[in-house]
């Protein structure tokens, strides 16, 4: 029994905090995790202090972050880039909305579980059909299946066509939480904290998953499928399983989204731009990390919301941020802040020798010159063809 309790243990001369079986953090990681937890719990108060930020927006960011965490299982470990994850997000959202609007199911937990179930079934079908391929073909197939779902929902009056469905069941006009009918303010905050709890549990589960033999097998598959097959890993079955798990995260996020927004429309939950958003959240936050996608979700949603107030051209703003990400911080926010990441190493080299700034400037100027000569060459190619 003693071993199952959280506590300090010593491993390889390093003191670690034991949270549960198979999950031991260094002191530094523990501190960071606690700060992160505190941040998530304090978000409603932060939103109250800053008038420009609304809790519902932050909440949305956390929800999308959860979907991105799920997608990241595929992208990071099996190296499969799904471009249709909105299908599962939308399945979750629409399951909740349908049950609430058509069958008057009011219980929060019931709606959530049903959404996860439906997302699982959907992922089993789509995964079976699209996992026959890898690489870009897989991306295209998932995207096409996502759009098929979008087209079907958009075209049916049963799903409310393009107007969508309201999530306002029961006399209280909102889901009950464990049998409690709450007023709007209390509902908003309680759903937020439930979301945080779900996110924390999901992250713990994900941590266990990727540090298990199954996670190691997925890594092996991502590095070399053929070799993984050779050493006896049932590649197709494992990849399929990973696909379903990642979809369950998406379905969960979709259900939470529906319960927060209290209205579901096909555009925001099923359209392929949403799939793109979820993928880019993972990369923005740092897809080689566990928490990165969550951070990316909050940041991207905030950015889009604030950009909308700031300028008419907020799409381009997001685009520029993504461009800067690709060229400047390919490891993402969390990845760059990590040990050995771009920001940390730049800061330390600056600390060692401040003159390094000169080298940065000259390398930037150099790349500008290269680009200029390149464009002259391009004109030559376009005019005279390829030799």
């Amino acid at each position, binding site marked *: 029994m003693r071993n199952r309790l959280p506590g300090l243990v010593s491993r390889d001369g390093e003191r670690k905090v034991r949270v549960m079986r198979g999950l031991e953090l260094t002191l530094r990681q523990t501190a960071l995790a606690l700060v992160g937890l505190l941040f998530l719990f304090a978000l409603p108060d932060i939103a109250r202090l800053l008038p420009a930020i609304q809790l519902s927006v932050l909440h949305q960011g956390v929800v999308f972050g959860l979907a991105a965490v799920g997608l990241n299982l595929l992208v990071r470990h099996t190296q499969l880039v799904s471009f249709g994850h909105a299908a599962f997000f939308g399945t979750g959202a629409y399951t909740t909305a349908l049950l609430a609007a058509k069958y008057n199911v009011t219980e929060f937990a019931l709606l959530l579980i049903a959404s996860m179930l439906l997302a699982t079934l959907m992922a089993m079908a789509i995964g079976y059909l699209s996992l*026959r391929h890898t690489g870009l073909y897989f991306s295209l197939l998932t995207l096409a299946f996502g759009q098929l779902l979008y087209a079907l929902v958009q075209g049916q009056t049963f799903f409310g066509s393009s107007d969508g469905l309201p999530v306002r069941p029961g006399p209280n006009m909102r889901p009950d939480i464990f049998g409690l009918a709450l007023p709007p303010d209390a509902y908003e905050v309680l759903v937020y904290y439930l979301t945080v709890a779900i996110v924390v549990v999901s992250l713990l589960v994900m941590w266990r998953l990727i540090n298990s033999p199954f996670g190691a097998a997925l890594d092996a598959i991502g590095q070399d499928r053929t070799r993984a097959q050779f050493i006896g890993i049932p590649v197709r079955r494992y990849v399929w399983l990973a696909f379903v798990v990642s979809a369950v995260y998406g379905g969960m996020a979709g259900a939470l989204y529906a319960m927060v927004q209290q209205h579901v429309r096909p555009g925001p939950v099923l359209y392929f731009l949403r799939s793109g958003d979820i993928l880019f959240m993972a990369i923005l936050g740092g897809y080689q990390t566990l928490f990165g996608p969550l951070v990316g979700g909050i940041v991207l949603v905030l950015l889009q919301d604030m950009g909308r107030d700031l300028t*008419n051209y907020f*799409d*381009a703003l*997001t685009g520029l941020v993504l461009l800067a990400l690709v060229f400047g911080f390919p490891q993402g926010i969390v990845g760059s802040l990590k040990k050995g990441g771009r920001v940390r190493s730049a800061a330390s080299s600056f600390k060692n020798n401040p003159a390094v700034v000169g080298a940065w400037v000259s390398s930037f100027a150099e790349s500008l010159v290269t680009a200029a000569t*390149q464009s002259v060459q391009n004109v030559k*190619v376009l005019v005279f063809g*390829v030799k």
Partner: protein
Amino acid sequence: MSVVTNFITHTLHGVQYGFILFLIASGLTIILGILDVLNLAHGELYALGAYVASSVLGYVVGLVPPPTDPASQAMFVAVVLGGAVLTAAVLVPVGAAIESVLLRPIYDRNEVYQLVLTFALLLIIKDAIKFGWGPTPVRLQSVYSGINGIPAASLVGLNYPTYNLVIIAVGAIVVVGLFYFFNRTKTGRIIRATAIDREMATAIGVSTDRTFTLVFAVGAFFAGFAGAMALPPTNASLEMGANPLVLSFVVIVIGGLGSLRGAFVAALLVGILSRWATWQYPPAELAAPFAIMAIILLVKPDGLFGTWGEMDA
């Protein structure tokens, strides 16, 4: 109208739709087949083509007399087609710049960065269009009605817009031209050689850098051309890029990844079948192409045709 003329009209609509789809998908499939890049901004290049065309065509059409007699009608068609080519030419440097400045540095990285990059371009081009032409949709009906004033289809007793026939004719010429380019010209063969085996192509003295720039520029050219041809019957709006992009994905998947011949067959198949389906059952309009894709993939998981390397006319 009898059932037969109805059938012919809807089939013609399907063929016309298929050629527009092919024009869009051809650029995408060439880029995908040779550079291995899924260009998510392709739909926005198409939209940019339509917007540029609204300015270019609006200007050049004003230079010629309104079409009344056969001579001026022929002149009008020629001017419109010239304007479309001019529009597409505007897109060429855009494509070349995107490839050489933005894409080239990240070829050796994980493919997710290519997706992020092209998605960022999608957002930026969309707002650039909004900046240049404003948020309201742009129309150019005079070109459509001007060409439709030529009574071509009524010669055989059909009531069918002449502009659509022009699209079919132009599409057919483009198909023949593309196959000729890739099979018979030196540059085309070099491009195919690069697609099949990059290292070997480099070894025999082909500059892959230049080939890639050229290929992306050609892809942008066809996106712009498709946009220019698709503009007159409808209007250009900020949302017009997304649908053709996804539909050309469907076409590429059905045809087989990177196969130009596959893209052609698939575009016509999707065009005609989805028009028939919409004719018989209007709500099927959105879902029909995806349903066709799902059925074909169940029968042939690799699409109709093989990869680029196996292409033979």
